């Protein structure tokens, strides 16, 4: 172990990460007050702390390891994740018409979370080996194929939001890898052309979400409530918020599953603009430090790895906050480190560990 590498350990990133973890636990606590268990701390708070602690340990372990080893396990990781994504379609627990989790006794495993890392690693490996080829459509198409597999399997659950994260990871990675602007334009045209087809094949509930996004009051659907409730929650927080655990909307349990996708609304209501801004700053710092790691990475593999991971995190952040703030339709993506969820927390922290690993080893030559 190169002790000198620790000199380049990104302290800012880790501080932001720890701050986000603490923030997340506090918000899960507030969001789960007064649910089923009555008084006392909901079991989810304890579990979230557990996941984060385990995740932090994994983060340190991963940071300690040279990220290069990832390229040798890339294919194995990718294939097994694809396999588990296939398995979850069959044995996954059915919730609200979707199979996303495999129950493993004490915990639930969400394979799409692991697959995000696997895809980032796989794409980074593939594109680093084919750096010259990135200017050719063939390589671009091949990389798109790599992303399409986990994306399609996730869409099949169905889980639209998470499926799009794979697309985001691919887009970010391919763009930094050197996708020709011409090809980017072609891609955009293709997406535009495919939109009507996508619209027609979309399941009804997804279409409802778009309707509801445009006009939440049009139909009294459950999603309509969430949208309206989220806006009211966020807006009523004002500058400084209603007070921790004192948000009337949140404590009223109008938001379905408010400790997960809509936890930002709880935060915004209770801690106001100031609290929300603090969160955005922390997430922004995390993302930008991740991109910095990409910038100073000593090789293409490390660079693309960081970009892939950051792309996934950035997509989730913007989509989740955007949805809570009424800028985007409702999609089920968790807010990194804040939303309750074990698989997500572990996957994000491992990803940050990889970012650290790259940042620590950015000098090829130690003097």
């Amino acid at each position, binding site marked *: 172990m190169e002790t000198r590498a620790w000199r380049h350990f990104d302290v800012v990133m880790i501080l932001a990460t720890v701050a986000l973890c603490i923030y997340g636990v506090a918000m899960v606590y507030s969001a789960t007050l007064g649910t089923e268990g009555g008084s006392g701390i909901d079991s989810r708070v304890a579990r979230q702390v557990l996941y984060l602690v385990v995740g932090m340990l994994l983060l340190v372990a991963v940071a300690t390891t040279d990220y290069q080893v990832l390229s040798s396990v890339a294919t194995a990781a990718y294939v097994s994740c694809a396999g588990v994504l296939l398995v979850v379609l069959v044995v996954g627990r059915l919730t609200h018409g979707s199979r996303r989790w495999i129950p493993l006794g004490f915990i639930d495993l969400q394979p799409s979370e692991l697959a995000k890392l696997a895809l980032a690693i796989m794409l980074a490996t593939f594109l680093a080996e084919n750096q010259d080829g990135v200017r050719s459509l063939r390589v671009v198409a091949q990389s798109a194929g790599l992303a399409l597999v986990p994306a399609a399997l996730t869409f099949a659950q169905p889980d639209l939001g998470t499926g799009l994260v794979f697309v985001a990871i691919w887009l970010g990675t391919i763009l930094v890898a050197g996708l020709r602007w011409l090809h980017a334009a072609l891609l955009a045209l293709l997406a535009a052309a495919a939109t009507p087809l996508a619209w027609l094949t979309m399941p009804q509930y997804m279409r409802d979400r778009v309707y509801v996004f445009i006009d939440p009051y049009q139909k009294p659907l459950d999603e309509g409530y969430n949208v309206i*409730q989220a806006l009211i929650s966020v807006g009523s927080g004002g*500058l400084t918020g209603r007070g921790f655990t004192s948000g009337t909307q949140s404590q009223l349990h109008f938001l379905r599953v408010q400790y997960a996708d809509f936890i930002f609304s709880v935060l915004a209501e209770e801690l106001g603009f100031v609290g929300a801004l603090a969160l955005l700053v922390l997430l*922004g710092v995390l993302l930008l430090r991740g991109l910095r790691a990409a910038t100073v990475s000593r090789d*293409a593999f490390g660079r693309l790895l960081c970009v892939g991971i950051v792309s996934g995190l950035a997509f989730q952040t913007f989509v989740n906050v955007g949805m809570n703030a009424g*800028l985007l339709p409702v999609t089920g993506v968790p807010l990194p480190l804040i939303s309750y969820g074990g698989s997500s927390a572990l996957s994000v922290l491992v990803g940050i560990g990889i970012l650290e690993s790259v940042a620590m080893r950015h000098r090829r030559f130690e003097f």
Partner: protein
Amino acid sequence: MSRAEPITSLQDPIEELEENPYRQRLLLYQVLVVLGFVLLTAQLWRLQVVEGERYRARADNNRFREISVEAPRGVIYDRNGILLARNRPTYTVGIVPADLPPEPEPVYRRLAVVLGLRPQDIRRTVDQRKSDRFTLVPIQTNVGQDLAFIVEERHRELPGVHVVVQPIREYVDGPLTSQVLGYVGPITEEQHQRLKSDPIRRYSLNDRIGQTGVESSFERELRGSPGKRQMEVDAGGREVSVLSVDEPAPGSNLVLTIDVDLQKTISDLLAARLDRFETASAVAIDPATGRVLALVHLPAYDNNVFSRGITEKELQALMSDPRRPLLNGAIGSAYSPGAIFKTITAAGALSEGIVKADTKVNCSGGLIVPNRLDPTLGTRFGDAGVFGEQDVVSALANSCNVYFYLAGGGEPDGKTEGLGIARLMDYARLFGLGAPSGIDLDGEAAGFLGSPDWKKEAHGETWYKGDTYLAAIGQDYVLATPLQMANALAAIANGGNLFRPQLVLEVEGTDERGNARSRPLEPQLIRRLPIAPELLAAVREGLRAATQSGRTRYGTTYAGTARGVDLPGLDLAATVATVEYARPGGAEPLTHGWFAGFGPVEQPRIALVVFVSRGKGAEDAAEIGKAALTRYLTRGPGSGAEARGLGSRQ
């Protein structure tokens, strides 16, 4: 293979950019991320700071509320479609704590004035609620319409106070059917724990649930599935608009096997003489199916008091009443059956070959069992009279004891054993004694059947032949409920089928598509008695003879104990029993009285047992039994429903 990269810090940044396009793209990426955050921040600023006030007002004033809509509870009919239990809409004045102003005292005071309560009682009710802040806490139920309107009109001064329409359970005939129907009451914590995971019925801590009777044993069917109403409410919690309604699914209706006309007949007959005894019970069963036609126990209670909310005082009064009206004596109290039990002794003795149909016994007025230690002393077992030569038919008709002493216990000198206590009790068990019958009601007693082992354990004494004698005539060591005796009688009447007494005829529900669908409940046979049909026929003949006087085919004579019961044109079989009940202090012993009868003898339609406790014996029971059987069997077809004249379900 990655390209070799120069050491970054020694290179000119601009040159870097030109040589390494990825840096350009990374920079662009970083700019985009920053822009994204700026955009989010701007939106948040707009929502929270610029429009914050407006949203806060909406959060306070316009709230979404989802309330549970109670499902109508299934109604209960008797077998002819007469309504026995229904849901009557009433007004309830309640408080939703979340809608109260921060200082609720003035509201409590104003409300107290309107309702005639004390403010501190209202406050206590609200504070001690078990539900969350958004669930209505009832303050006063079954409020009159005028009062309800007054509260509604003054809603501005009473924020948080709501008037809702809530159905209360109404039992049309009150005490007449309370023992069968039971009542609904507030759900207990323990019940809620057990039931809270039911996804269809979705019990909340505020719900009412069947606590006893048919209301309880068929709670699953009677309770429907609550609906949901999503609405927007204002600061006072008043509904501003309805956003969606999930209709509740009503519970299934029940059609009972009870014939309420017969129930009323029997109840009136018992009530007319109630001052002569302590409690009275009667059970009538259709022998062909085991369906219970009537189940009466007096004194009864009015189960409507539980519906409107029983007060502590009323409950105390009911529970401390020495005659125990809350206990359904027809199924829950066991007594010595007396001479009625002789039918079982006879059936057992015939079946085991101890006696045959033509076996004659000299009923000489009594037996003496010699004392084992001193043969000159002995215990005398008496009889109601000297009947001379008797066979099983005349012995049953006369209710001669000696025949049954000998059939059940053998000769006093021990030369024969007769049926023996073990086999006697086995036959009693075959007829359903000693165990609950399985009727769909809670609180059924199992009764008691003694045995030598039991006597040794409980009293440390050995079993004597005299004990078997007493058991054989049902005077001791046997305790049975009126229901058990009626069920046994039905098995004799129908030729050997012991059914589980059935209270519910049909469950009327709706399927998923809302179409009416009724599920008839079939009779359940507990067992076919292993007794040859011709032997049971002899027992029946004995009971038939009990209503008359004459000569049996084997030449013995009888003057039946139930002679007055028979009527021309009505073929009845019956027997009566008087069981003595010693009172302390040497006062004149009181007696329990039994009547057991069925008819018509060929193809019986009803088997009836009447029991009166601590009265003057069998006379009253017999009179009541005869009147009830007569009334039922001479009633025209369909007159059951007409006689009531109201409440038909059509």
